[in-house]
């Protein structure tokens, strides 16, 4: 078949104790975008590693343009025309954009690098792709979205015919996603193809021609996108039907106020952030990237210095200087960056679960009581349905969803009654997301108060009893679950009070064009909508 760009047939791959892929099939046709979906742990990453030559298959074969193809190493795969953008960026933060794009293919004059030629080529490429990048900027100083563009420019510079993107939009906002999709459409020509891996099913509908679903390391089905509903895809992925129109549960007013934040400000970003959090309430924080949602959490737990504002916990004013103090007061912050800030990846489940409460709960006569940590961990693993062979398993071997559950377990052991969860389902597949949602609802019902920061609007809408929307470091409005819709949240999230006088007026702020106007001093109650 000549129009089959890439074929994967009967591929098996096993690791000690785990069968990662068995009898995997996949066909990428020339000129198409093929979406690859599956729950975390379904085998997508393993398949990518096989295609890039990072692993060797135990059995099965690949064909590229109809020819047998055995990738030896990343370089071989690249030169064969397969470019992969991995989920974790593969950039050198200390090098410039141009240096990153052409790493390994530096233009030279004799033995010397030709920086001028390098920059010229990079400028050409970036201009051709229409990317807003300064090619001389150092990559480490760029935003996530810009870094992604560097990755894409790098991948496309190899004259790839097969372009594989693993979760390319996990950290992008909608405009950036649109830019990315534009790039992909331009890349797809009659002789090239794209494999697009994503958890965002609405995106797959927008960008792909066909969808291949895999589950538990096995091929499930391939569907034409136009003739398929999201619900069908999810059903194939998880092997069961899901309730997708779920709404927040247990919403009621008049809850006892647990956390009362007034006029919270930080030097660089936050301006006069005020809100309350009730007992057993789930308060969602919505907003575009950079609006200051994570910064609010960091300011509350004392990770960043505040320049103003008061925090009352159970009615008593508190000053929190660092996250350890916050934890002592019962406020736990679950970072969006699980792998770096949430877990000790080399350590096992029980160590991680016990970590924050070692001193209070798991020491006897100054020694760590390991049997006790294992008992507690075993109990929580069962309660939260963490999928792990045992509590002795290092957390790096767990899937994203199960890692998140371990982080939640850690804070439950700590007995926190205020949990701030930042992007709790980032990088987690649909089925596991449902479990995290159920878990958060459960915790709220038991009287835990939860602040949920999320970039996924459907998630915020289905979970939050109330939604605080942020823009430019301010809370632009707090919506009750009944009044919140995609439209109302987006309206508040896109206000630009620092630039637009009309937006400033809507929020009761002084005209940003008048320099003499006192800038937002004195606490103003966030506008209720």
């Amino acid at each position, binding site marked *: 078949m000549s129009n089959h760009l890439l074929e994967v047939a009967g591929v098996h791959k096993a690791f000690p104790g785990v069968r990662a892929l068995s009898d995997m099939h996949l066909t990428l046709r020339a000129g198409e975008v093929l979406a690859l979906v599956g729950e975390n742990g379904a085998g997508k990453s393993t398949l990518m590693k096989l295609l*890039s030559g990072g692993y060797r298959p135990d059995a099965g074969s690949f064909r590229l343009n109809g020819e047998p193809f055995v990738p030896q*190493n*990343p*370089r071989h795969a*690249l*030169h064969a025309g397969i470019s992969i953008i*991995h989920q974790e*960026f*593969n*950039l*050198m*933060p*200390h*090098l*410039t954009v141009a*240096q990153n794009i052409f*790493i*390994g293919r*530096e233009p*030279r004059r004799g*033995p*010397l*690098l030709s920086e001028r030629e390098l920059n010229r080529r990079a400028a050409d490429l970036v201009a051709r792709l229409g990317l*807003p*990048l*300064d090619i*001389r*900027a*150092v990559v480490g*100083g*760029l*935003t996530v*979205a*810009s870094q992604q*563009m560097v990755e894409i420019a*790098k991948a496309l510079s190899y004259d790839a015919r097969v372009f594989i993107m693993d979760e390319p939009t996990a950290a992008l*906002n*909608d*405009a*950036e996603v*649109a*830019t990315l999709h534009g790039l992909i459409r331009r890349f797809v020509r009659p002789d090239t193809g794209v494999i697009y891996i994503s958890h965002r099913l609405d995106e797959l509908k927008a960008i792909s021609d066909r969808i291949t679903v895999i589950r538990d390391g096995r091929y499930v089905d391939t569907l034409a996108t136009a003739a398929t509903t999201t619900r069908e895809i999810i059903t194939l992925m998880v092997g069961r039907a899901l309730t997708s129109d779920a709404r927040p549960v247990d919403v009621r007013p008049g809850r006892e106020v647990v956390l009362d934040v007034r006029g919270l400000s930080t030097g660089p970003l936050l301006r006069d952030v005020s809100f309350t959090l009730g007992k057993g309430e789930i308060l969602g924080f919505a907003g*575009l*990237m*950079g609006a200051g949602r994570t910064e609010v959490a960091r300011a509350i737990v004392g990770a960043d210095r505040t320049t103003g504002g008061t925090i009352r916990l159970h009615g008593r004013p508190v000053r929190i200087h660092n996250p350890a103090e916050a934890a002592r007061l019962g406020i736990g912050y679950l970072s969006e960056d699980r792998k770096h800030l949430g877990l000790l990846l080399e350590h096992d489940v029980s160590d991680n679960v016990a970590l924050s409460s070692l001193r209070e709960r798991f020491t006897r006569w100054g020694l760590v009581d390991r049997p006790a940590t294992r008992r507690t961990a075993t109990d929580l693993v069962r309660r939260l349905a963490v999928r792990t062979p045992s509590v002795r398993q290092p957390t790096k071997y767990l899937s994203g969803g199960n890692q998140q559950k371990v982080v939640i377990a850690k804070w439950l052991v700590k007995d926190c009654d205020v949990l701030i969860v930042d992007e709790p389902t980032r990088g987690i597949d649909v089925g596991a997301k449902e479990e995290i949602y159920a878990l958060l609802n459960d915790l709220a019902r038991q009287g835990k108060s939860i602040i949920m920061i999320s970039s996924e609007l459907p998630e915020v809408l289905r979970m939050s009893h109330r939604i605080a929307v942020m823009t430019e470091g301010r809370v632009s409005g707090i919506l009750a679950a009944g009044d919140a819709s995609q439209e109302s949240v*987006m309206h508040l999230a*896109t206000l630009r009070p620092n630039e637009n006088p009309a937006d400033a007026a809507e929020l009761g702020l002084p005209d940003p064009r008048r320099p003499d106007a006192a800038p937002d001093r004195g606490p103003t109650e966030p506008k209720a909508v």
Partner: protein
Amino acid sequence: MAFPLTDGTETAARPNWLTAAKNRLQQLLAFASLIVIFTFFALANSAFPTYSNVINILFSTVVIGTLALGTTFVIITGGIDLSIGTGMALCAVMSGVFIVDAGLPVALGVPAAVLFGGLIGLVNGVNVAVLKLPPFIATLAMMLVAQGLALVISKSTPIYFSDHPGYTKISTGELIPALNIPNAVVVLLAAAVLAGFLLSRTLLGRYTYSIGSNEAATALSGINVRRWKVVVYTLAGLFTGLAGVLISARLGSAQPATGMGYELQAIAAVVIGGTSLAGGKGSIIGTMIGALIISVLNNGLQIMSIPQEWQNVILGLVILVAVYADMVRKKET
């Protein structure tokens, strides 16, 4: 829904001359502190700012400076090389073996000693890059091996170059008679220019930064990380060999029991010069300034009759202040 792309372009749009100026500033600051320290000693003691003392300072920078050049490459890759001190002593001994014992002419014995240093580095490189031993452990082991071999080969006695006046000229001779600059200083300068060139203008330099910045990504970009790491450690070994020649030529003898401690001074020079132990960042000019700061301090404190013990205390404090200042500066930008 139309979303502005502000998040993505803010930093990207920052003019690059600003970043460049900031990098210059860092070197300027290191250089400024060198000037400040120098001025302080000059004001404190009139014997300090004389021509002959400045030459003295440069002369005493030679060994640490040469070792620090190779170490800069290793540290930028995120590695460390503890074997350069005793490795230098072993190379000095080998130079003695080649020239004094085996009777090789100086013109052959010197390159042989330098290449022997390269061999030490090659072994380090293979241990680190191929056997995947942690650099600290691999080079700690090599430090002990080199020290032991230096003593075994020399039977624990110094080897004297008294019959080879041409050899000692390598360090103490004066190529340009009018200036009274010892050859060792000229050699260091030439070595530094070469190292700076390698680091900033060649593939080796680019991949040195790249590996230190993100090793996994460098490998995924199709670069043979293993091979380049071996090259970097071998290069450090070559500079070790050169330092061995320079120190033995200066002393007129190969001292097998010396060397220990030089590696830490060289690492100190690199770190004071703004190279990050985490890798990915550093420069030869910074390293040279760092090495000069160390010898200016040693020389100045000596002239002020401050005992050796206190010189070490002060040097330690300088390292703390230099690295802390670098961190604070980075946080602010």
